[in-house]
């Protein structure tokens, strides 16, 4: 029995706010609560809820806040390890780096708001994830973003894409956080339901960590930052239903971001935390004041008393219901000892922010809200959070999905290896994302060691000689075809990207974007993908430190492709060890690591050129991946590597081409001569060049070091074959295998790769033109 169970009914008295609607079955349904949940509320209160209380339950028991369909599955993630300072449950996870430094990081989705209003939806998504990180006491030092859209062939998708990118950029640029990486892909399944996942990474001294637990009876709750308006009321439950005509009607609830205010909030919050002025801090994200206050109280095992009439509002006449559920941006809830309130206000005033006491911590365990003294909410606080319903939906793989795995595409008549590579480099999903990341400030803070464009981004930890590497990844086609292997593959790719940069993978955060979990085939995807992620994390020793679940990503045509995005951070022992993706010097030896079986199931070749998404994806050998990671880090430490690039979509051919094309600001491409005969010459060329087996990396080293590299690979149990030589600038990429050979002028490939996206977007400048 918890303390909450013994709260006497007298403490739970509350009355309707004058003029508010009666709680009828219809109103309950509007709040997305089912009969079972409503009965639970009746039992918990011992009476009918007021409308305001119903709003509170609706928000906190929404999928978005309560994880009611995902909790039992998420519990299976490995969450502990020697580096874990803070696991899941707080605003962001925290991992230990070295010399007293720690990294706080988290990823979050803002899919539905971005579908309705791409610019503001994406911008406020960035704002939210930033707050999650700096409320831990960490200074944000890097942003990443993972985006999904339907095909760029339609105007609506181009509009969404351009608007989202501008929104992500404008917000992060203004706050002054460099974007160091991300990913964008385009597939039919995201038409009408784009995905916008933003990740933030921050640094703190381990002793500066602060958590979101209200404690100390009598301590004061303050709202800091922007005023509360009527925007985004019920955003949390909006995020927990499918997009429909109805969502269009919700448009007036769009939240508008103010990155300038966020920057002030960031500085003020860090000063409040590091100066020891406050005992707890929590951002007001989804479900605003409701979730921030209720969750802080529940974590601290205390009650809170709030008066909504004290909350500064943007417009007069707001009801307690509206104030509690508003999702106005750039607000924080802070807990301070009564004696320090004046100091808190002084710090905030210096940053031109208001800090207004709105209530205090109580000892009766009740989440109580009054408006001008009239109590409108009185709910047992712990149970409000802990007793959220939990569902165990049915999971069953769709027959069609099983059938797809054993299908193969019709043979293509005029397939040419040369043409196929050109075509693949021209597909927006594979092509350079320079058009995107040039809109993001990637060098502010003067700590960027590797910006966007390489396998992982790397930032220096200021004042030290080491760095952190960051990446986000997900290949949703693989997850769609085989959720378990796809889940493994996602973590494996992230870890490979980190290791290619020379860093040791440390841990992950995840953003699990799926359709409606009440559909058995969707829940199957979810459960299996999570199992794959968990197994990979266990094998790699990279715990899950937090994340976000986004369900109900559907549109009239069905669920999106399952997209469990993984954000990973790694430790780069010394900045001097960092490795970028591109060929560098003529005469360097090219070595191919790993094994190629030539699996085309789920490949970009089939999907993009044959319009066929099917076949069984290659299985992931987690132990082989682990050995590969260790080898890459060891070789980087010995400073043996000139470049390292992993093979993902498009297989060996695309990876080699990307190495030869070079970085976005290289003066030209650089040629190479590669003979894959010793690697896997017996394979059919299509399978050899475009197969998407995992665990493969193309590295280069000086010719003198090649033997040492091969020996080191052998010691680590990593298959490695010397396969060629880096050629001259403006040269050609020549690949041969067995008795065939193919050739491409690198500068032509370069043009295709960098033009693919801009040439499809010639007219989207208009949206930008109309920005006020």
């Amino acid at each position, binding site marked *: 029995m918890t303390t909450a169970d013994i709260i006497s009914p007298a403490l739970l008295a509350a009355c309707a706010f004058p003029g508010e609607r009666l709680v009828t079955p219809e109103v309950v349904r509007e709040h997305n609560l089912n009969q079972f949940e409503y009965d639970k509320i009746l039992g918990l209160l011992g009476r009918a809820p007021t409308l305001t209380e119903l709003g509170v339950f609706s928000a906190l028991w929404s999928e978005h806040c309560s994880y009611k369909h995902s909790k039992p599955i998420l519990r299976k993630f490995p969450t502990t390890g020697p580096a874990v300072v803070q696991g899941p449950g707080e605003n962001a996870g925290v991992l230990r780096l070295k010399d007293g430094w720690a990294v706080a990081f988290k990823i979050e989705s803002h899919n539905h708001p971005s579908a309705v209003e791409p610019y503001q939806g994406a911008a406020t998504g960035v704002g939210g994830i930033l707050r999650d990180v700096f409320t831990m006491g960490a200074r944000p030092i890097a942003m990443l973003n993972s985006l999904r859209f339907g095909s760029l062939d339609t105007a609506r998708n181009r509009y969404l894409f351009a608007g989202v990118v501008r929104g992500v950029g404008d917000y992060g640029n203004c706050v002054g956080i460099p974007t160091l990486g991300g990913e964008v892909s385009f597939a039919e399944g995201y038409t009408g339901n784009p995905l916008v996942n933003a990740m933030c990474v921050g640094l703190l001294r381990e002793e500066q960590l602060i958590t979101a637990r209200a404690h100390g009876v009598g301590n004061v709750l303050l709202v800091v930052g922007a005023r509360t308006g009527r925007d985004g009321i019920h955003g949390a439950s909006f995020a927990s239903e499918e997009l429909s005509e109805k969502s269009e009607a919700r448009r007036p609830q769009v939240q508008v971001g103010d990155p300038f205010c966020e920057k002030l909030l960031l500085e003020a919050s860090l000063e409040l935390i590091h100066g020891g002025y406050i005992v707890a801090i929590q951002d007001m994200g989804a479900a605003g004041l409701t979730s921030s206050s209720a969750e802080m109280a529940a974590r601290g095992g205390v009650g809170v008393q709030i008066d909504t009439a004290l909350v500064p509002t943007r417009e007069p006449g707001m009801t307690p219901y509206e104030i509690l559920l508003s999702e106005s941006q750039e607000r924080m809830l802070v807990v301070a000892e009564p004696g320090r309130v004046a100091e808190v206000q002084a710090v905030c005033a210096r940053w031109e922010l208001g800090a207004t006491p709105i209530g205090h911590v109580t000892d009766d365990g009740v989440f109580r809200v009054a408006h001008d003294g009239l109590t409108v909410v009185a709910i047992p606080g712990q149970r409000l959070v802990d007793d959220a319903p939990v569902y165990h939906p049915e999971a069953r793989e769709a027959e069609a999905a099983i059938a797809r795995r054993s299908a193969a595409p019709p043979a293509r008549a005029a397939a040419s290896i040369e043409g196929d590579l050109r075509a693949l480099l021209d597909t927006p999903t594979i092509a350079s994302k320079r058009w995107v990341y040039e809109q993001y400030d990637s*060098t502010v803070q003067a700590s960027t060691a590797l910006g966007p464009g390489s396998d992982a981004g790397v930032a220096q930890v200021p004042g030290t000689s080491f760095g952190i590497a960051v990446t986000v990844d997900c290949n949703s086609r693989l997850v769609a075809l085989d959720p378990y292997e796809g889940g493994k593959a996602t973590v494996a790719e992230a870890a490979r990207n980190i290791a290619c940069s020379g860093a040791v993978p440390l841990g992950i955060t995840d953003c699990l974007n799926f359709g409606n979990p009440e559909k058995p085939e969707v829940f199957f995807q979810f459960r299996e993908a999570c199992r794959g992620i968990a197994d990979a994390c266990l094998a790699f020793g990279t715990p899950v430190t937090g994340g976000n679940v986004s369900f109900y990503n559907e549109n009239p045509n069905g669920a999106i492709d399952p997209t469990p995005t993984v954000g990973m951070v790694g430790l780069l022992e010394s900045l001097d060890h960092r490795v970028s993706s591109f060929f560098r010097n003529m005469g360097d030896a090219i070595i191919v690591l790993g094994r190629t079986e030539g699996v085309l199931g789920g490949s970009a070749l089939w999907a993009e050129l044959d319009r066929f998404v099917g076949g069984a994806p290659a299985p992931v050998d987690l132990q082989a991946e682990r050995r590969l990671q260790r080898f890459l880090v060891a070789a980087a430490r010995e400073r043996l590597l000139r470049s390292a690039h992993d093979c993902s979509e498009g297989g060996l051919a695309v990876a080699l081409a990307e190495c030869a094309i070079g970085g976005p600001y290289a003066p030209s491409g650089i040629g190479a001569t590669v003979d894959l005969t010793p690697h896997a010459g017996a394979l059919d060329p299509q399978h050899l060049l475009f197969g998407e087996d995992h665990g493969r990396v193309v590295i280069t080293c000086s010719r003198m070091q090649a033997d040492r590299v091969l020996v080191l690979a052998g010691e680590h149990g990593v298959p490695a074959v010397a396969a060629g030589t880096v050629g001259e600038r403006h040269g050609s990429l020549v690949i041969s295998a067995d008795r065939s050979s193919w050739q491409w002028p690198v500068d032509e490939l370069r043009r295709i790769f960098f033009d693919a996206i801009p040439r499809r977007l010639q007219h989207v400048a208009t949206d930008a033109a109309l920005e006020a």
Partner: protein
Amino acid sequence: MVRVAVVRFPGSNCDEDARRGAEQSGAQAYFVWHRDTSLQGADLVVLPGGFSYGDYLRSGAIARFSPIMQAVQAHAAAGGGVVGICNGFQILCEAHLLPGALMRNAGLTFVSKPVDVMVERTDTVFTWAFDRKTPVRLPVAHGEGRFVADAETLARLEGEGQVVLRYLKSSPTTEGNPNGSSNDIAGICNAAGSIVGIMPHPERVVDPRLGSADGLLFMRSLAGVRALSGAAR
């Protein structure tokens, strides 16, 4: 040691980068708050990059009315060195300490990338450590960097050698002028070379361990401003 005051406006976000860069080069660099009225005996003032007041209305338009700007005006009028980087350049133009204005990029999007620029004038507070015209590669990151001035002003800037930095047109890698600036201008100064505004960010490339030190000589110029005062006046 040279005292460099870095002004922090609400929304500045390259303030720490500028302070650190100046300090690494040997200056004694410190922050002054936009509401302060004294520069605390600064030899040189830096208006750093960022989004002062959110860049609302026009970048730099609101910041120029900050209380500290009176002290900056006085310092400038007395011949003291003032350097504006990116948002700082925009503020200097809005405050009429430098001529012209910085408008929305011609491509309409924010542009973040390295650009190749020529340091054309090497006797200013921000460039004297260069001993001759030198091409450097510096990052830009701005949405409003298109330098605009009337024909007469442009002619004067060119005629008097007040163009400090110019985007290199022919660079194969960075595609030249990133924002449509008149005459490819990336930075200008007043006639004396004591007030300088540039769009690129030298303070972000001062550590060879991070890949480039092309900005170092700018920072050294700041840190050695006395040497200029001695030599140039």
